[in-house]
């Protein structure tokens, strides 16, 4: 029998219902693995006591035949989701000791479905980053290593780096992530797992520390498409407490994934082959992905998304603009860090608190956003970026209106890079999101599925993009890709 931590969520659910093992045993196996792999720094706050209590409650419900869809499944919760009574930091010093007296809607939904909290997963500070290096609680290590440089530590991607690393390292069966410009999909690709950014409005944002409100979307990260579908079903749903949450029924995502792709039209956008920074290796993996879908009965068609090249620039106006406003509440007045000395003015307190509380990347984005919204610059930056955003959304709509059912692209332009690369040029870092940002700006669902290993033995994902609220088709195509790719490689860490 495989070890408990190797099971998928779907397998574990069957095992639990068949009483092959208990939720308590499943949770203990993960808590033990978390200790073994503590060096990954995937968790900011492990919650073993809460996990044991929740697992015991799950066992009681299973015994009574009242198991929910995620009953007894131990998961990691990105530390951006507020958890009642459990510290929620957003990866920032400014919320370093913050304990919310409330529970986010998405986490509440997961607990109601029976999921078990293993701990709060590390992330880039306020979800701003693509390497998890901006966390105030230290960087996360990717469990994967290059075959040519096995000792070299790699980044897990970001911002949901702790979630991705934990799922890949089998110290969580699944994890929540949030995705603003690629924060679920890029780390999923870097860590060889599956991650879905649902359609904007599919999951409630209530109780998630806000980065950029018009882009932020919670989503599942797990090791299979089926697990992602199961988890999404538990997370999603209309929430009257979030005005931007869509009043749309939640379908049975998992039920549809095996329908295959025969007859589906898969769009291949020519603009996703940038001249700079795009590894030929990844181009080849993309081509293989197309072949896999064709072999499964889909038709691939070349499409054009002409405004793609402006997406990153527009994103780095819109997201920081919203962030500059969203992060104004961290002022030292009501909660979180306060730095003040006798005789200080209110402005002194603001400067000292925010100066000490925020890291460099967060400060950079607050400054960019403040500048972009300033009188005299608003039209040239924010308004222009919103126009570009509308054009990007129109590009996708045109493609889907022409009969394309789903779009296939690489998730990232390159595989995981080294922690030692110390990328200090922000634009180089931002380029990680070049393939994921357009989908975010258009509010569409995007799924990253691990498809192959690069020559250096690192996982690489492909991205499937769908129509608004058509996660079904995205997951179906993802499942077809997953089957064809038969990606079974594990991080070397777990093979030792």
């Amino acid at each position, binding site marked *: 029998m495989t070890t408990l931590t190797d099971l998928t969520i779907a397998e574990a659910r069957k095992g639990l219902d068949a009483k092959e093992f208990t939720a308590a045993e499943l949770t203990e196996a993960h808590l033990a693995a978390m200790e073994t792999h503590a060096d990954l720094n995937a968790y900011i706050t492990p919650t073993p006591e809460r996990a044991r209590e929740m697992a015991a409650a799950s066992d009681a419900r299973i015994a009574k035949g009242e198991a929910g869809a995620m009953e007894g499944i131990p998961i990691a919760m990105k530390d951006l989701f*507020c958890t009642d009574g459990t510290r929620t930091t957003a990866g920032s010093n400014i919320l370093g000791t913050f304990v919310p007296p409330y529970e986010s809607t998405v986490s509440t939904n997961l607990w109601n479905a029976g999921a078990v909290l293993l701990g709060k997963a590390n992330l880039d500070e306020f979800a701003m980053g693509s390497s998890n290096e901006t966390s105030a609680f230290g960087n996360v290590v990717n469990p994967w290593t290059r075959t040519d440089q096995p000792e070299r530590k790699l980044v897990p991607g970001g911002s949901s780096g702790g979630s991705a690393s934990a799922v890949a390292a089998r110290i969580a069966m699944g994890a929540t992530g949030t995705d603003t410009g690629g924060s679920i999909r890029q780390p999923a690709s870097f860590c060889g797992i599956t991650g879905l950014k649902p359609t904007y409005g599919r999951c409630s944002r*209530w109780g998630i520390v806000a980065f950029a409100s018009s882009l932020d979307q919670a989503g599942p990260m797990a090791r299979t498409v089926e697990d992602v579908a199961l988890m999404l079903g538990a997370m999603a749903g209309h929430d009257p407490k979030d005005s931007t949450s869509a009043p749309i029924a939640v379908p049975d995502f998992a039920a549809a994934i095996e329908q295959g792709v025969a007859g589906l039209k898969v769009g291949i956008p020519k603009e996703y082959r940038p001249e700079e920074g795009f590894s030929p290796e990844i181009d080849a993996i993309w081509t293989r992905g197309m072949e896999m879908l064709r072999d499964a009965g889909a038709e691939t068609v070349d499409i054009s998304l002409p405004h793609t090249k402006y997406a990153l620039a527009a994103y780095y106006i819109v997201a920081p*603009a919203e962030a500059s*406003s969203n992060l104004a*509440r961290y002022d030292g007045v009501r909660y979180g860090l306060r730095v003040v000395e006798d005789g200080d003015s*209110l402005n002194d307190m603001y400067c000292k608190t925010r100066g000490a509380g925020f890291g460099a990347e967060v400060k950079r984005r607050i400054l960019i956003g403040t500048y972009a919204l300033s009188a005299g610059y608003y039209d040239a930056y924010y308004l222009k970026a919103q126009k570009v955003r509308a054009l990007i959304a129109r590009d996708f709509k045109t493609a889907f209106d022409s009969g394309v059912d789903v779009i296939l692209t690489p998730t990232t332009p390159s595989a995981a890079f080294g922690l030692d690369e110390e990328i200090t040029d922000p634009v180089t870092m931002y380029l990680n999101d070049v393939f994921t940002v357009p989908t975010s700006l258009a509010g569409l669902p995007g799924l990253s599925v691990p498809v192959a290993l690069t020559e250096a033995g690192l996982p690489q994902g492909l991205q499937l993009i769908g129509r608004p609220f058509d996660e079904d088709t995205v997951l179906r195509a993802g499942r077809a890709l997953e089957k064809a790719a038969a990606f079974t490689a594990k991080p070397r860490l777990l093979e030792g």
Partner: protein
Amino acid sequence: MDATPAPTYVLSGETGDWEVVIGLEVHAQVISHAKLFSGASTTFGADPNSQVSLVDAAMPGMLPVINRACVEQAVRTGLGLRAHINHTSVFARKNYFYADLPQGYQISQYELPIVGEGTLILDMPDGSSRTVGIERLHLEQDAGKSMHDQHPSKSFIDLNRSGVALMEIVSKPDMRSPEEAGAYLRKLRSILRYLGTCDGNMEEGSMRADVNVSVRKVGETGLRTRCEVKNVNSVRFVMQAIEAEATRHIEVWESGGEVIQETRLFDPAKGETRSMRSKEEAHDYRYFPDPDLLPLEFDDAFVDGIRATLPELPDDKKARFISDVGLTPYDASVLVVDRREADFFEAVAKDRDGKTAANWVISTLFGTLNKMGVGIDESPVSAENLGKLIDLIADDTISGRIAKDVYEIMVETGEAPDTIVEERGLKQVKDTGAIEAAIDEVMAANPDKVEQVRGGKEKLLGWFTGQVMKATQGKANPGMVNDLLKKKILG
């Protein structure tokens, strides 16, 4: 203004005559049970920080959800101001840091307010009317309250008010005198109270005014630089602030200086304004559409549903009082200021002479209420009883003079006038015999005066009337007394 008549309010400076240009921004607290974007209560006077939701305190991850009742109140107010209702409007964030602003921004409306242009008719004390344009009305959140006097070195924050719905009602720069500004505020308050959308209590801060003032030489058509006097909290202070600010501007211009656009505060104790912050220190509010909220949209049916529940508003009521009841414009405008007073008047005037009823209500009853310092709801005289009193005069049961006495007794005892008249025997004497007897007595006691009248000094007849009335304790019918006196003395 409809036209540009010769200015009625002119300030004379050393270099000539100046007129004042005034625009008002009124913040009116919406009457609603819950706040604009949260379910917390809005009751005034609760313990500090006892009415604060997670949203109001801007806890991480909290999101605003629009309160439908506040939207209805804004539309209702827009309809009352005969304004254009925008079926799509947008909430925007106004960003600035302050300790009592938990989010670090105020959710307001900027480019697309819920209500567009409308009009307000001023009822001036001389009975004339002026029209002032309404520029817009938008919904926004109130901030909390900072208290700097509770601790020697610390400031305290009360967030009870944080998130309470306000309507900002912006006039066009159409007013030209402190009196017009005062009339504007009183009329706006009257309409808001009729509509039940704001209680209009300036002393409790539920209605506050920012006053924009500039001056220009009489005859100039362009506008000179304006200053904004913030947060003035009574009609009287608004009028004083305008005068002080206009005078300051004239002094600056006439001494060769330039008025600088800035925000100022009015100090009622000193009767002057002082600078709060200059244009250079002005906030850059970085307005942008709030991404947490979808555009606010509603259809005709929503607006029509609210329109159907509107009460008769003061202007319509005033017109009706003039055309149907026959009141003067002045009397009509006095009676319609307060809806309850207008209702009271209508109850008194029902099936009676309107002008008589108006006289009693305005001259007599309002005087009594003023003296007692109470509102119409606590009037010691009910509308029913005041009406009965008028009936007693009309059917000659009592004279006008006795009526005054009866009224005073009504004020004191709250009793019905017919009871008072009956119990105290105040009925008018219409018995010719009794009156003749009284006349005879007076004539017998004053033969010299009788002779004088007969000799042509008919003015003295009035004196006789008085004597007879006195002899009958005012109960004699004065008309009958006059007739009989003439007959008896002059034959």
